[in-house]
């Protein structure tokens, strides 16, 4: 496991993994979306509006998956002090927040024709909105911690990432614990209440979006590492020129 702690080895791996994930994700998503939007049948009750499923459901999964990534990476950072874990947690926050926002927006658009309302404060919708706000707080905290490098401030961010994970099972169980307008899960362990005609494009879409998510996380990790290197180089150069100046000052 510590083999992957080496940023040089990670960068070698990420260099070819990033375009591979992004391209295969794009191909799968566009294929599955074309299938879902143009070829898959309409629902018996909801009609054509069911097609928003192919974006809404993968976004919801990845919104929660993003925070799960943050939580696992935060745990690794706190216990094993793994520098790449810190970077992975930072890198997952923005794509996770974007998918959570897409989930809320498409859900709202879907709710108007099917339920008759854009928004209600039931358990599922409220806990998902809380997840979006947790992402905002995490990003603000990470931004503030970045100012003093990977250190104490970073640890505070990791603790927040771990504590915030408590919301993920709450989102998942919200439709079971409390009466809600949102229906219970259609896909549970080994069972699906979704007809295969909708399920296949949905699963391929989810796989494609997950690959895209992975590609974006890797690209962001590379960017964060490159930033660190550039900063370190600038610092070295500044110190070198300062030393030069003091040497010159002494000789004059």
């Amino acid at each position, binding site marked *: 496991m510590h083999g992957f702690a080496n940023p040089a080895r990670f960068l070698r791996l990420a260099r070819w993994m990033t375009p591979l994930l992004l391209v295969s994700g794009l191909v799968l998503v566009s294929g599955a979306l074309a299938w879902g939007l143009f070829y*898959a*049948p*309409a*629902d*018996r*009750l*909801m*009609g054509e509006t*069911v097609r928003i*499923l192919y974006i809404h459901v993968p976004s919801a999964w990845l919104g929660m998956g993003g925070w799960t990534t943050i939580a696992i990476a935060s*745990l690794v950072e*706190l*216990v*094993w*002090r793994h520098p790449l874990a810190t970077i992975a947690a930072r890198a997952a926050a923005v794509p996770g927040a974007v998918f959570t926002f897409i989930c809320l927006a498409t859900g709202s658009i879907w709710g108007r*024709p*099917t*339920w*008759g*309302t854009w928004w*209600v*404060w*039931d*358990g599922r919708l409220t806990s998902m909105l809380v997840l979006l706000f947790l992402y905002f707080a995490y990003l603000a905290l990470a931004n503030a911690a970045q100012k003093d490098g990977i250190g104490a401030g970073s640890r505070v961010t990791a603790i927040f990432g*771990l*504590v915030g994970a*408590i919301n993920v099972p*709450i989102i998942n169980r919200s439709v079971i*614990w*409390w*009466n*809600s*307008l949102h*229906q*219970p*899960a*259609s896909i549970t362990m080994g069972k699906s*209440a*979704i*007809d295969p*005609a*909708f399920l296949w494009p949905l699963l391929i879409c989810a796989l494609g979006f997950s690959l895209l998510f992975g590609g974006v996380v890797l690209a962001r990790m590379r960017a964060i590492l490159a930033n660190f290197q550039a900063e370190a180089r600038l610092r070295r150069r500044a110190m070198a020129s300062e030393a030069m100046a003091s040497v010159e000052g002494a000789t004059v």
Partner: protein
Amino acid sequence: MSTALKPKHQRLVLVILALVVLIGAALLAIWGLRGQASYFYVPSDIASDPPEPGRAVRLGGMVQEGSIQTLADGVTVSFVVGDGEATVPVRYTGITPDLFVEGSGVVADGRLAADGTFVADSLLAKHDENYMPRELEDMSEAQAKAVVAETTAK
């Protein structure tokens, strides 16, 4: 100290303890919220503990088969909402959502009238977790018809 834990393991134990406490606190909070965080009352809640007439409540349940009736004014519907244990008669004036059909879920905002009827101000349709193509449903109906045609006397 030879029995001292490695710092790495010390941190692991600390994090696990903190997580256990956190999950305990969350479970307590959820236990405390169990009656409050529900989005609506079901008919058996109304039957066992009826809210005073005029108090705003939200009622959710299944629209009973064969219960939807349009009243003489053409815009008021009356129907019965049930949850398998109790039923509540509901009256609503206005446009109903597309998914408002018998045998499907509904959530109504409103108040209980003195005669025990629930007068709704707004109506939301609740979708279930089943997704099925329209063609497939038609197919099974067509098949049913075919079966009926085959089995009836020629």
